[in-house]
């Protein structure tokens, strides 16, 4: 409804403008000054309306503005025809209504200036003074905007043809400043016009008009003769005075931004303290962070674009000024939400990183300031603040791409203290990812310590609270990162590397039952890698008291892995023990190796109850044990015996069978002559065969269910025999193989075994080996007809 009326009024006003403009044009064509003035005044009277919204008023204004162009030209011609411009200047002031009068005055004023009959300054002063008469915000704003528009290209400045005396440009400056001040006042006042319930709408409309005010600042920046001195001593203080005094959120926000955008970077840099000094004086609701961030961004770009500017930054101590100003702002604006203050620091940090990339102490200072601020607010809880702080903390990471640099920032971990768990974890992930992505070398234990301190969010639970809602996959992914991180830590110096391992261990052990199975393996392997390195370096340069002896590390690992068995991850622990045992074996530390085996056996006995797991574990034990070379006969016997015993006690017969024939390897090692006990090998195989027989019997008893098992077992056994035959075990006789061959034959005849291909390839192998040079004599024992 209101909008409709708006349209209607606008249409009516435009029609009237058109009509009067037409008459005015006709009067101009016939050189009738009096009528031209009369109709132009009537046309301008349409601008006296109070009915239009700012938007529509602007439309109307533009129409009138175009018409006034013709009038200006007419005035110019009129003066050419001998009409005194001073008379014209008076004549237009006879108009009874103020608004048309002032529009006409501005129009003729601009002609007056051009004519150079009088000093420009006098006219400018007069115009800007007379315009005070329009106090209606909207109309005044447009009038002054018109004034600014028509005088814009006529302002005196150094070097311009209109230059009067030396002070002319100062007067021009004064003129623009005054017009700006008045316009801003009017603009600010707009919000109080009309009922308060429409305030929001009005503010929106008001915002649309802001460029009218801002244009003045633009004009100021374009004025020639405004050098740094003038800017610092006159322009800026005057603008800021107005900005601060108007006490209006919208205006302050917009104008601060305007100042930052229209004036040159160098000016800002040199007047930084003045500009920043104004910030704490702004209204609390002003979005200072946007303002300051705009400034800092601009200066950052400035610094980036010209190298010569950098010394200036140092000279004016831009950093400390910003830091101080932000502190002041935060102090002044008590209601500033944490997110706001963090954002401020974020921008300061970005600025610092841009401009003073080599000044870590500055970066640290920013962090310190932020800590101080946060200490007042406590832990951050809202999402927005968290997001900002993540950005805040990520900024240096992105800049330096090197976590080691970050670790030098003493305040960095302190900031992280204020994060909630979620955010802290997120941040930890970012840090770790940065390490991984940039392939950062972290080479000292101290750095590692600091890094893990930072990545705490990933390493351990907070306050013992375990969040059950965590997605398992995500969790694994996170821990995967930790694992990758552990592998990244490396130092050529074994001494330092061992320290690193000690440190990592310290942190990882705090991880709790969910993490340990995922994080200990990388640690163990990293340590084993070191041990291998130490062994490779023949002698230990540090002597026995150094921490980096394999023994000590193994000792540590033993303790570390034990932690795993406590958190019900026995299979992992078992594997790790075996790995350690292998390493110990390589270092020829018999007791240590034995110790590891003992632990592995204990785990097997006590913790591993699932039969499938048992089978796997047992195979691992056997495999590892087979390769052990350090043991004396006694120890070896004990362990071998145990392993064989376990094998016999497996639940399923086929498993027993397989485990036992694997055990046969324990008595036969290729390298050591003393470890070739052919007799016991065959004993094991025989025992396995007996079990296979039992399996077969059971199969026959319940035909149809697991018939194939025994055949496969026989073939496997056959293969084992062949293996040991090839290895030169004299106890493997033709008889044994023959009987086995018969068994296989009879079994395959009885039933479709499904093992044909296995048998066939075994046969092909035998055939092949018989023809080989080295093997043919060993294979003489075997007759191919046994298998047919």
């Amino acid at each position, binding site marked *: 409804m209101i909008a409709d009326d708006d349209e209607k009024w606008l249409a009516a006003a435009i029609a009237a403008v058109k009509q009067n403009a037409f008459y005015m044009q006709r009067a101009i064509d016939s050189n009738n000054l009096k009528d031209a003035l009369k109709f132009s005044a009537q046309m301008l009277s349409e601008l006296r309306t109070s009915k239009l919204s700012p938007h529509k008023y602007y439309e109307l204004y533009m129409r009138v503005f175009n018409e006034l162009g013709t009038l200006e030209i007419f005035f110019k011609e009129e003066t050419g025809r001998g009409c005194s411009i001073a008379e014209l200047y008076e004549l237009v002031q006879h108009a009874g*209504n103020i608004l048309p009068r002032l529009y006409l005055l501005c129009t003729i004023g601009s002609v007056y200036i051009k004519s150079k009959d009088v000093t420009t300054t006098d006219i400018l002063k007069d115009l800007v003074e*007379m315009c*005070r008469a329009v106090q209606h*915000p909207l109309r005044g704003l447009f009038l002054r905007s018109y004034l600014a528009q028509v005088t814009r290209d006529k302002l005196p400045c150094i070097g311009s043809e209109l230059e009067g005396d030396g002070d002319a440009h100062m007067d021009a400056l004064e003129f623009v400043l005054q017009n700006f001040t008045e316009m801003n006042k009017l603009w600010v006042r707009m919000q109080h016009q009309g009922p308060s319930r429409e305030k929001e709408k009005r503010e929106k409309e008001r915002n649309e008009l802001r460029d009218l005010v801002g244009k003045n600042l633009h004009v100021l920046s374009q004025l020639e003769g405004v050098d740094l001195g003038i800017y610092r001593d006159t322009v800026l203080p005057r603008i800021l005075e107005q900005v601060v005094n108007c006490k209006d959120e919208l205006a302050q926000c917009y104008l601060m931004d305007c100042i930052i955008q229209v004036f040159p970077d160098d000016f800002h840099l040199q007047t930084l303290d003045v500009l920043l000094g104004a910030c704490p004086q702004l209204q609390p609701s002003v979005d200072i962070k946007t303002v300051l961030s705009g400034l800092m961004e601009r200066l950052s770009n400035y610094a980036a674009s010209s190298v010569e500017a950098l010394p200036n930054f140092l000279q004016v101590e831009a950093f400390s000024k910003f830091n101080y100003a932000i502190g002041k702002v935060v102090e002044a604006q008590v209601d500033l939400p944490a997110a706001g203050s963090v954002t401020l620091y974020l921008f300061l940090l970005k600025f610092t990183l841009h401009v003073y990339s080599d000044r870590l102490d500055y970066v640290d200072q920013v962090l310190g300031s932020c800590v101080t601020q946060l200490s007042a607010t406590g832990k951050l809880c809202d999402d927005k603040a968290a997001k900002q702080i993540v950005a805040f903390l990520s900024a240096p990471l992105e800049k330096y791409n090197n976590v080691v640099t970050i670790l030098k920032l003493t305040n960095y971990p302190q900031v992280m203290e204020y994060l909630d768990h979620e955010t802290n974890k997120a941040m930890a992930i970012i840090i770790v990812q940065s390490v991984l992505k940039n392939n950062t070398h972290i080479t000292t234990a101290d750095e590692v310590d600091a890094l893990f301190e930072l990545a705490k969010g990933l390493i351990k639970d907070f306050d013992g609270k375990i969040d059950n809602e965590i997605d398992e996959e995500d969790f694994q992914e996170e821990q995967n990162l930790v694992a990758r991180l552990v592998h990244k830590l490396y130092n050529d110096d074994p001494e330092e590397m061992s320290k690193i391992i000690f440190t990592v261990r310290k942190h990882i052990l705090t991880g709790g039952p969910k993490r340990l199975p995922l994080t200990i393996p990388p640690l163990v392997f990293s340590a084993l890698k070191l041990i291998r390195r130490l062994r490779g370096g023949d002698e230990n340069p540090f002597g026995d008291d150094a921490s980096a002896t394999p023994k000590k590390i193994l000792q540590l690992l033993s303790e570390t892995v034990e932690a795993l068995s406590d958190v019900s991850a026995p299979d992992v622990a078992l594997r790790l023990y075996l790995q350690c045992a292998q390493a110990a074996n390589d270092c020829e530390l018999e007791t240590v190796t034995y110790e590891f085996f003992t632990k592995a056996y204990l785990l097997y006995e006590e913790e591993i109850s699932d039969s499938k797991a048992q089978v796997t574990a047992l195979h691992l034990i056997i495999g590892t044990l087979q390769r052990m070379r350090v043991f004396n006969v006694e120890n070896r016997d004990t362990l071998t015996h145990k392993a064989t015993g376990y094998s016999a006690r497996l639940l399923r017969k086929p498993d027993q069978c397989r485990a036992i024939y694997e055990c046969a390897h324990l008595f036969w090692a290729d390298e050591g002559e003393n470890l070739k006990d052919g007799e016991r090998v065959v004993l094991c195989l025989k025992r396995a065969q007996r079990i296979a027989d039992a399996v077969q019997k059971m199969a026959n008893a319940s035909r149809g269910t697991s018939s194939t098992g025994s055949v496969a077992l026989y073939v496997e056994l056959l293969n084992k025999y062949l293996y040991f035959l090839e290895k030169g075990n004299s106890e493997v006789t033709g008889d044994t193989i023959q009987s086995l061959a018969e068994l296989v034959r009879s079994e395959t005849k009885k039933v479709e075994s499904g093992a044909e291909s296995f048998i066939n390839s075994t046969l092909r192998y035998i055939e092949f080996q018989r023809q080989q040079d080295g093997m043919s004599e060993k294979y003489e024992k075997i007759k191919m007809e046994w298998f047919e």
Partner: protein
Amino acid sequence: MNYLLGAFKPACNISITFTDGKNRKQVPIKKDNGQIVMNPLFQSQETIAGKINIEPYQGKKVEHNGVKVELLGQIEMYHDRGNFYDFTSLVREIDVPGEIYERKTYPFEFSSVEMPYETFNGVNVRLRYVLKVTVTRGYAGSIVEYQDFVVRNYVPPPPINNSIKMEVGIEDCLHIEFEYNKSKYHLKDVILGKIYFLLVRIKIKNMDLEIRRRESTGAGANTHVETETLAKFELMDGAPVRGESIPVRVFLTPYDLTPTHHNINNKFSVKYYLNLVLVDEEDRRYFKQQEITLYRLKEETLS
């Protein structure tokens, strides 16, 4: 019919011309019927001289008991219609009784006539100067011809001309201070000034400056006062805030003003006032009226 018409026609045509009539400045004067005619302009102490032509109509003769010319300064009160008060009356006999057969020209001269008052056309009163030529006849009735002329008197700028400065207001509502640069303005002057808002608690819509003329006629119980607003000049649009000062600049040229007249011949006075009017959004008017003196400045001293 022609004959009859001819019978009622005046017997002769009288015309009055001034000596320097071609060069003398003419000013427009509104006559009773609203017509505007141009009349020659004189000032006090000038010699008013010229010629009077009397031209009988074709074939007629004018018999008379003498011809005279009078210079009259008259004040006419409209509510007292028909009554003229002559404050100046000078007579010149220009012919002795006789007969006029053909066109006859008489020169006349009133030297250095004292004309203290200016020609004035008001609402209720008129002050005029007129030359009256009378051809006196016996029974046929005298033939009379009038010629108006205008008198304007110029004065030098007043030695003392203080500004008008005043603080006015309504308690807790509106306080303003206004200043007009002079208290005496000549007719082509400019009023300069400032309105300073000390306190504004009402929503002002606009502010005007009115120029008002107050014409009072008669004396005592018969005094008639008529006030006219001659100019309404908008000074301000919209509501000012505290501390705002609004410039005043009013050119008097476009308005039809006269000098201030004080008690002219005990018959009338004309006074001028500046009336500052503030109108609020509910169209209530707040005003303050200040008398100013208007005077006619000698042309050559106008810069």
